[in-house]
């Protein structure tokens, strides 16, 4: 393992401290229990709190700020945060209109947030994101995982909450965006969890993992490496099939997010975008909104995910609205 590390047990705290210090105009870090909030507390709105294992930066703390999250709870690397973090974060930011948690659908995250909500003294609701269409078989009762589409949910719900909308309305939009969003990921390498010191899986130069999540866990299938267009073709096909199976018409406007897993250059991400947009046009899908970059990473994994969100007027309005966070900023 070759990484910028002082002491393995200090990696997370040192990284969070650097993050908070670099973006001190936007975010404030609390330790023990660990959570981050906006540096200026919002008033009279539903507060949006997310959280999850670390190693996915800029998810979630990078999305704290106007138009997105009010607070985020980072866990250990790839490990859900604990209920005391969520309770402390909610206590710190709640603004009398309830708390909305945005949780990626992983067993650990779901259970920890569930235990927190059982102890929470405020009105609350939860949006579970589950955009990963790689998990197809309905007998897999854990269900689909929440991956990069979570960013789109956080952006849209965050925008709506700024307008003073109530808790139920915010939750409904989050559920809608999630239902209209589908993702699939491909890994060219695994990643190295600092405390483990070695790559989570081994993979040959000639192979790829199709249908990976964001934790360096193996995907659905080990396949042969091939040209980018052929890989993207299979990803787009999986996404289109997913929307069709949900009965969603695909001949409409969409947001295309090409997300890097941490070790894939932007040059390749844009190449993937080029390929995907063309293929989507062939399916009658018109990509009118785009986001390309490292938005939901898996430490140093090489690979990328493709996320498509089918837009309607409401989603478009909340995607386009101003946002000011460390990792996403436009309109102000």
């Amino acid at each position, binding site marked *: 393992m070759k990484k910028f590390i002082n002491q393995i047990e200090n990696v997370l705290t040192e990284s969070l401290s650097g993050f908070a210090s670099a973006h001190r105009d936007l975010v404030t870090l609390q330790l023990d229990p660990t959570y981050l909030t906006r540096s200026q507390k919002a008033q009279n709105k539903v507060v949006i709190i997310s959280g999850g294992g670390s190693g996915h930066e800029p998810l979630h703390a990078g999305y704290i700020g106007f138009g997105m999250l009010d607070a985020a709870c980072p866990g250990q690397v790839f490990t*859900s945060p604990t209920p005391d973090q969520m309770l402390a974060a909610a206590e710190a930011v709640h603004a009398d209109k309830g708390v909305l948690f945005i949780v990626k659908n992983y067993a650990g995250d779901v259970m920890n947030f569930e235990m927190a909500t059982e102890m929470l003294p405020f009105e609350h609701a939860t949006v579970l994101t589950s955009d990963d269409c790689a*998990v197809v078989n309905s007998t*897999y009762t854990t269900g689909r*995982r929440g991956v990069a589409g979570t960013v789109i949910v956080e952006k849209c719900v965050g925008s709506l909450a700024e307008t003073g909308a109530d808790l139920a309305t915010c939750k409904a939009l989050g559920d809608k965006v999630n239902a209209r969003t589908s993702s699939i990921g491909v890994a060219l390498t695994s990643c190295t*969890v600092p405390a*483990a010191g070695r790559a989570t899986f081994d993979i040959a130069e000639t192979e790829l993992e199709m249908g990976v*999540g964001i*934790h360096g866990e193996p995907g*659905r299938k080990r396949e042969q490496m091939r040209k980018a267009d052929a890989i993207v073709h299979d990803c787009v096909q999986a996404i289109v099939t997913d929307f069709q199976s949900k009965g969603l018409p695909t001949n409409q406007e969409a947001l295309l997010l090409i997300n890097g897993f941490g070790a894939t250059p932007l040059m390749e991400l844009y190449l993937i975008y080029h390929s995907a947009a063309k293929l989507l046009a062939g399916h009658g899908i018109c990509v009118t909104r785009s986001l390309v970059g490292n938005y939901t990473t898996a430490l140093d994994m090489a690979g990328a995910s493709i996320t498509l969100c089918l837009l309607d007027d409401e989603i478009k309005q909340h995607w386009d609205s101003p946002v000011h966070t460390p990792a996403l900023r436009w309109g102000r």
Partner: protein
Amino acid sequence: MKTNFILSASLAIHAAIVAHEADIESLDRAIGDGDHYINMKRGSEVAASLYNELLPLPADEVLNKIGMKLLSTIGGASGPLFASFFMSMAKVSKQNGSDSLLEIAAAFAAGVQAIMQRGKAQIGEKTMLDVLVPVSHQFTLLAAEGKSSTEIAHALKETANQGLESTRNLIATKGRAAGLGERAIGHLDAGAKSCQVMIHTVCDLVIKGANP
């Protein structure tokens, strides 16, 4: 159960988890995401570190405090699951209030039940429950038959082995391996492995003469 026994078990479990790092980690790398050993180590370490603080307390408070500490320390799926186990075990121990093997078995069963409820999982889903559920059933059965603690300990070690082995040919429907489909077949579950290690450790204490 006795405070002394719980705390000795907690120290022994921490040592056993660390001793089995290689086994647990290789299973998690095969079909998990590589954090299970780290989480088990963090949890068992913090439980062991409470030794002096918990020594003067009654057993049910000891179990409850261990549960609360695990909840705020481990994270992931293991945190809420093991926390629910200890907190439910504490509740039933307090209600029962004696140290008979049958009552310890009842407390253990309540703990396992709490894991099933929290994880919305059952036996046969390639998780820790494939070890814990058969062990709990066997424990209750043997305690009801009036078997001695040593006899029970020997039997439960074997039950734990069988439970672990049963995960090899399962498709995972819960936990991180649930995304893998048929690729999980042929691999033991890492969570089942760490539970087998912990059951063996506690049983070995009893076999060596510790009084539960």
